[in-house]
């Protein structure tokens, strides 16, 4: 029973989806908007449960079949809240957007609930199969949602593209997992890490390294990192706008949570030591090209949704930089932890991007879907409230104070620098320069919205109480995260410290062999087994590569 209680947030979201499906059948045509509130209520309950149950010490699950596949800790908690928040906001935005766009079905809300369930499962999974399950539950629901506007060829195209390319990425992921299983014979991440540590000669380095590349590539696809980003602008543009908001806000957070956990947990394996391949270099490379390409291509876009898509790619770049530069401070286990500010960054990004897409979701009557820059011209004068919401969201994305985006970027870059002040400086400078480049297209949105007169028929806003609530929340949070971020930064630190799976946490699993958790000398190394001292390599230090110290 207590296990069921422990995983109740997952159950609540899943149940919400089923409830919505049932209610959808009962509700009459054109009266589906209340389903959005049902979804929000379900997510709120799940969010509260997650806070109560998961935000403290890692939860001890009794049944081995549960304990072996998931870990309920601050990592899962923080990212679940981000996903639930983005999901709830997307549901609110959908309430009036969907009918206006001729999408009457309540299935959007059910799919949204399942997608959220999948995302949460993905983030708490410690087992490769569970992880894959979570990813597919999340993604399959998304493919359908992207194609949700059946009358629009763009939407169908978006769904199909996302589905086909997502399938390729899933194949990569599965292949990577197969390699890992082949090399170690284990599915649990901690077991794999331990096996790799204890039997350096037992696992074929080529298999392990190939697995790492495949996993990173698959997740890079999900987070929309260059060069696996091609789907992003087309899908973001074609999908119904609330769905895009969810994709950008929630899916990115979930994918990053998993990427960080996977890579940082496995990267300590000896298979990567003494070889030319370094997972850190791979992340850095992806980060750099994502920042550069995302921002440069953002400049030449003329459609606001596409601009935000490239913005999403650029933000993936900054975040990859954050994941790459692991924390210099070391937890008691001696393991390098995820950069403190990555979870906070994802929260701030989710709030801002959902806010920006949210404004777009509330624009355009009956089926209009053209969101080119010239159409939002004069928005600030005709709909000042929407204009201000867009302004706040876009400036937060651009990283201007006093908004959450600024705090996030500032802290992230600061932490990256702190990890290695001299070595990381060039990359931080590049990131800052690219942020300045990005300012161009963010300010272009502001320019059009506030200082240009519309040409031809200006876009008209739909009236939406639910949507207004959602936008009010994004604006308030964007400001709050920028002005009083302390609590959120603390939570972010907790989450980041739980991200990397270590032996000591694995020890708490019921049924697992007790693992020595005696505190080793500070930063000396990880102890996975009595007497076996695994040297710790600085994850992102070039000097560290190939040296056991």
């Amino acid at each position: 029973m207590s296990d069921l209680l422990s995983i109740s947030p997952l159950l609540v979201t899943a149940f919400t989806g089923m409830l919505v499906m049932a209610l959808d059948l009962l509700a009459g045509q054109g009266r589906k908007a209340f389903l959005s509130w049902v979804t929000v209520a379900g997510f709120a309950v799940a969010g509260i449960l997650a806070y109560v149950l998961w935000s403290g010490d890692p939860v001890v699950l009794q049944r081995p079949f549960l304990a072996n596949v998931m870990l309920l800790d601050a990592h899962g908690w923080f990212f679940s809240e981000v996903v639930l928040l983005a999901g709830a906001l997307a549901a609110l935005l959908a309430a009036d957007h969907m009918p206006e766009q001729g999408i009457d079905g309540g299935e959007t809300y059910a799919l949204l609930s399942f997608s959220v369930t999948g995302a949460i499962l993905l983030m708490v999974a410690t087992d490769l199969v569970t992880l894959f399950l979570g990813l597919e539950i999340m993604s399959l629901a998304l493919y359908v949602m992207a194609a949700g506007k059946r009358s629009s060829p763009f939407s169908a195209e978006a769904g199909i593209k996302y589905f086909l390319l997502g399938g390729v990425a899933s194949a990569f992921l599965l292949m990577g997992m197969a390699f890992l299983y082949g090399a170690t014979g284990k599915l649990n991440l901690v077991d794999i890490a331990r096996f790799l540590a204890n039997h350096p000669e037992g696992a074929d380095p080529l298999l392990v390294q190939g697995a790492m590349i495949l996993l990173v590539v698959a997740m890079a696809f999900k987070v929309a990192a260059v060069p696996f980003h091609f789907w992003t602008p087309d899908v973001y543009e074609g999908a119904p706008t609330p769905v895009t908001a969810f994709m950008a806000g929630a899916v990115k957070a979930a994918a990053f949570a998993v990427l960080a956990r996977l890579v940082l947990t496995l990267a300590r394996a000896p298979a990567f030591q003494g070889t030319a391949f370094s997972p850190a270099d791979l992340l850095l490379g992806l980060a750099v090209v994502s920042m550069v390409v995302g921002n440069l291509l953002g400049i030449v876009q003329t459609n606001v949704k596409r601009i935000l898509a490239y913005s999403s790619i650029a933000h993936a770049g900054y975040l990859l930089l954050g994941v790459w530069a692991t924390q210099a401070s070391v937890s008691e286990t001696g393991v390098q932890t995820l950069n403190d500010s990555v979870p906070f960054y994802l929260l701030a990004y989710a709030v801002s991007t959902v806010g920006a897409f949210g404004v777009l979701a509330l624009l355009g009557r009956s089926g209009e879907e053209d969101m080119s820059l010239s159409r939002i011209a004069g928005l600030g004068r005709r709909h000042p409230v929407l204009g201000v919401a867009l302004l706040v969201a876009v400036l937060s994305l651009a990283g201007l104070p006093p908004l959450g985006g600024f705090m996030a970027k500032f802290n992230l870059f600061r932490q990256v620098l702190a990890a290695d002040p001299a070595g990381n400086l060039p990359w931080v400078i590049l990131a800052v320069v690219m942020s300045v480049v990005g300012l161009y297209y963010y300010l272009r949105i502001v320019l059009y919205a506030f200082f240009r007169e519309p040409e031809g028929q200006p876009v008209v806003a739909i009236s939406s109480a639910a949507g207004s609530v959602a936008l009010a929340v994004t604006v308030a949070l964007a400001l709050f995260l920028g002005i009083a971020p302390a609590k959120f930064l603390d939570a972010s630190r907790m989450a980041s410290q739980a991200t990397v799976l270590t032996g000591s946490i694995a020890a708490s699993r019921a049924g697992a062999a007790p693992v020595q958790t005696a505190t080793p000398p500070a930063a000396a190394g990880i102890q996975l087994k009595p007497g076996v001292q695994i040297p710790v390599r600085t994850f992102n230090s070039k000097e560290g590569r190939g040296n056991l110290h």
Partner: protein
Amino acid sequence: MSMPSIETLLVVVVLAPLVGAVLNGLFSRFLKHSTVSLLGVGAPVVAFAAALLAVIQWLPLRASLPDASVTVMLFKWIEAGPIVIDASLYLDPLSAVMILVVTGIGSLIHLYSVGYMHDDSSYARYFSHLNLFTFSMLLLVLGRSLLLLFVGWEGVGLCSYLLIGFWFTDMDKAIAGKKAFIVNRIGDFGFLLALFFLLFHLNGTLDVPSLRQAVADPTSVFNTDTAMVTLVTLLLFVGATGKSAQIPLYVWLPDAMAGPTPVSALIHAATMVTAGVYMIARLNFLFVLAPVSMAVIASVGAVTAIFAASIGLVQNDIKKVLAYSTVSQLGYMILGVGVGAFGAGVFHLMTHAFFKACLFLGAGSVIHAMAGEQDIRKMGGLAKKMPFTRWTFLISTMAIAGVPFLSGFFSKDEILFKTLTYHHVSGVVPEWLSVVWFALALGAALMTAMYMFRLYFLTFSGEQRDHHAHPHESPATMTIPLVVLAIGAALAGYLGLPDPSLNVWEHLLAPVFGAAEESILATGSHALELGLMGVSTVVALTGIGLAWWLYRGAGQQVPARIAASMSGLHRLLSNKYYVDEIYDTLVIRPLKAYAHFLWKWIDVGLIDGIMVNGPARLLSAVGGAGRRLATGDVQGYAAALVVGLAVIVFLFL
């Protein structure tokens, strides 16, 4: 009805003009002409009444108050680490005098404006600005912290700009406003630097009483770091040269006459221009620690006094004569505070406020009567047609010329006396220097008597030389202020009689200046002071006599002959020593050329052209090329995925 407390009254003093400014400034379109007048004049009158009540309550109390002062804490303004700055008002003998002068004379000038500006289309804007000025000036004199003083300082500068350029559709007037503002900014910059030095290099407070306490401690940094104190006081003085129109920054004041005449009277004669003198007097305890700064101040004051007076001799515009006269008289005040005669400097400030305001308003009355004519060569014979204006103008002219027993006589005399004796007590100033200052000041006094009576004779005596206008006496709203001010001009001097037992003024201000003046003015005999009175009386009468002879009597051909025989000197004076031209050549043109260079080459060329647009063009080009990759073709995308993977494998394995 019990009387409101001093604190409440002080808040009323400051806020009443602000309320007037806001109401007239924002709601003028809903207000009738008469309501605008009522608000505009009512605001300073209320302030004056409140100030009077506050001072009346404060006078008997002051002996029991610390430094004879009352502080009204309004709110905590700035709190940043160790720096705490309150917005609080400070009533002490000095600010008590100042608020009475500002609100009293201000009220009269507001009243006068009702008549003078009656037909102006921007009547409400005028009163709004004038009230805002009064508010700023009161903030300046009542601010307890130097930063609050600075807010008022900037506020009066702004209002001065707004009012000089009041008729901004006339390009020349708009330019005059701009000139005043820019020249003042130079001074303000010095002031601001001084505040920074005070805050960060000395003891970290801008609160005047705290500063005075810190200075009183002989071990404090003020008494050990004389170089820094000298720097700070000199920078403060730079601020004073801007606001109080001293060499080298006096050039804006003559041009400021472009504003309406009551503005000239209030801002550019009676109140704002004395802010520099007030500030030095306020910080007297700091200035006496820097004898070098004091010597600089006194020298600048003395030179300005005679320099401006000499220009005044040949000006033909009635307001320009008064403008140079104001610069010259401000030089006197600066000389006074420069030789440590703070009480005398402020005393002259007060008497000058009366007679110069009266002169300007009289000039305004004349201009009004002459239908806008300002050239004194075209006037004459106005005495009979404008009796009120004539008599009040004559009294004030006598007062400024230093005719015995009128106010200017006493105040000017005290400055002369203290200038001559300054070397006794200052270790820095040699005797010859104080004699030079004295000589310059005496020369300026002679010229003042001459040009003022030249002005008077040309305007009021003889026959009207130009018959286009039909002069008539001005309405009562204009003549009443003239009469009141003339009474003040005649009698204000009796507050500071030279006999120590009768000198109410010195006694009143002793809590502010006592310590500083005692440290300086230890000597000087009473007999010497009375002797000097005789000398300055002779000088004044000589100047008046010369003016009579040259412009009324037998010597009327002489000025033309002098002008012809010394044409070089005459041209030099007429062109105001070519100072504007020199500034134009030495400062403005090089600056403009430099700015042009920065604009055309650095900004447009280098920054915009290469550094901003260059990367932007490059990035757009790259982005444009990259865009072609996004074809929308899903097979292509999938292929890209695989190629990406292949590249990574190739690179990393």
